[in-house]
């Protein structure tokens, strides 16, 4: 996208013909740490899309970015905190939620967003996740679920579907995965939605709703990892994974999250599953 009010630089082709006018600035520049780019994510990864949707949702929400803090754990998604031009915290593995809890309670004026991956939030951080949801803690938790440990090279995650292959389940996962939407809903979250990175507009709308929702709001973002998950499971490009999401996903708002298990080769039920009014943690403290 090129903004008319910004200077643009013509890009010269090797043969001397002018190719296009490219803005040296990006519309999200004010929300990104340009001096940290390029990012570390692989081609075909969904994290850029997830981050872009989040930043668009943030703008749409009308929240003041100076009063927004982003907290991440460890992993590929954990690097999100390092790229946003807001107060941002890259904590230890699994601990983004309790760190964010302290941050929020010490300064309730802040909007605190946890942005992390499935291994970080649900395996090593699983206990914190269910307790923050139980408390209806005033946090927005965005979980990018790629079904695998990316940063460490493609190991089994608590979300890896049964039979899916990873470097530590090379003959297929003989274990049951978590259904994150069900887990969040059962634990007490006030808002639960799931989208894939194919569903950019819907994802952005959900993220905006989640940002404005008091209490614990949870958005699961199913995201391609062609480098590792795809390679192990016959979806070698991001495009193939996006095609898979297109073929397999079914939008079903209000679906019972218990019926929304994700299986290898099965349907991916997406939509907004939970959006209920219940006192948030901070509201309960007021008595």
């Amino acid at each position, binding site marked *: 996208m090129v903004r008319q009010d910004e200077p643009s630089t013509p890009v010269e082709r090797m043969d001397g013909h002018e190719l296009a006018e490219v803005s040296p600035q990006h519309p999200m520049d004010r929300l990104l740490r340009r001096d940290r780019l390029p990012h570390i994510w692989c081609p075909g990864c969904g994290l850029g899309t997830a981050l872009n949707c989040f930043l668009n949702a943030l703008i749409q929400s009308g929240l003041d970015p100076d009063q927004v803090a982003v907290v991440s754990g460890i992993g590929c998604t954990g690097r999100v905190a*390092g790229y946003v031009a807001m107060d941002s915290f890259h904590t230890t593995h699994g*601990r983004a*939620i*309790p760190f964010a809890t302290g941050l929020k*309670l*010490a*300064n309730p*004026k802040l909007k605190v967003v946890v942005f992390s991956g499935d291994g970080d939030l649900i395996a090593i951080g699983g206990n*914190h996740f269910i307790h923050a949801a139980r408390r209806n803690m005033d946090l927005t938790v965005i979980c990018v679920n790629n079904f695998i440990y990316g940063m460490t090279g493609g190991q089994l995650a608590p979300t890896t579907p049964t039979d899916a292959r990873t470097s530590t389940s090379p003959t297929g996962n003989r274990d049951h995965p978590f259904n994150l939407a069900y887990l969040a809903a059962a634990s007490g979250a006030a808002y639960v939605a799931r989208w894939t990175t194919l569903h950019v507009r819907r994802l952005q709308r959900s993220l905006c709703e989640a940002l404005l929702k008091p209490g614990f709001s949870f958005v699961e973002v199913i995201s391609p990892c062609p480098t590792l998950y795809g390679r192990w499971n016959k979806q070698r490009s991001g495009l193939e994974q996006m095609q898979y999401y297109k073929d397999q996903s079914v939008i079903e708002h209000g679906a019972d999250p218990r019926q929304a298990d994700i299986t290898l080769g099965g349907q991916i039920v997406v939509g907004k599953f939970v959006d209920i009014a219940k006192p948030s943690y901070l509201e309960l403290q007021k008595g």
Partner: protein
Amino acid sequence: MTTTGALQGEYFISGDEACAEAGISAGCRFFAGYPITPATEIAERMAERMPDVGGVYIQMEDELASMNAVLGAAWGGAKAMTATSGPGFSLMMENLGLGIMTETPCVLVNVQRGGPSTGLPTLVGQGDMMQARWGSHGPYEIIALCPSSPQEMFDLTIEAFNLSEKYRTPVLLMADEAVGHMTERVTIPPVESLKLYPRRKPTVPPEQYRPFEGEANGVPAMACAGEGYHLHVTGLTHDERGYPATSSADAQARLIRRLIAKIRDNRADIIRTESKWLEDAEVIVVAYGISARIALWPIEMARAEGLRVGWLKLITAWPFAEDLIRELAARVKAFVVPEINYGQIALEVERCAAGKARTLLVPHAGGDVHEPHVILEAIRGAAGR
């Protein structure tokens, strides 16, 4: 009670309660904890008192969460603390490291009980002293204080908050069950009379601010979330802006050198000891916490026998008072170190004595304190009687 909600006057309270009150007097307005004997009374007192002073008490799901919530609260602008004992202290080690790496001021209280593992939940131990020093991974320096009485539980908690702000680092209060559960007269001075070290805020605009660049004494000023500085804070090795520098041995060297130097180079300001009879001593009993108090009795008995015995109480366990021990080693025969473990601080004494004076450990497994005669026998042995 004063207008700030802090107490003032004379109270008959336990060490744990005195610790909680000191937190409130020091301006702590965030406590996250998880119940554990013998530190639970600190959490209970905080749960009762925080609403009085407009602060936050939250009971977390475990000690991993408690320590992280404290770090988050510190970056949210609060003075924050947690309290635990052995098993919880083990769980906090991971994020004590995050606090050190991110230079986050906070106070972590360990009311030590008998260990290892679940050990003796209701009975005294001093077995976590080396864990306090080295329990989190990687190279670092730590500040740890050891109270010997409920009054010191109060005074040193204030001191712990001050040191944490001054050096922008977590500070450990290494108490023990005996001191935590002991109930004595505690004088709580008016808040206005306390010297409280404020959080040093940046004086430059956000674009010039370097949250991890050492200024005074190697310590950076600290902006908090929501103040417009767009901080980035990471447990990864980082540069002065806070940006990850994970493929740079230079960045690692710069950061670690400063983190260590800001404690080591300021040790004269940090280290506190208390002593008696050092002038004529040929044997010195070096102790801390409840053991320092217990040691006074056998020392007095030994002196009554004509033995020239001195008493050195380590108020600051870490950084270790090595300059003082080195100096004393040059002029005494021996150090006697009673501690409720099988030799931790004694190893430091021995290291600093460097063969110039003998070091005699008086170990005790825990569950109760040393019998005075055991320490007396060690003193006699050290004196060659």
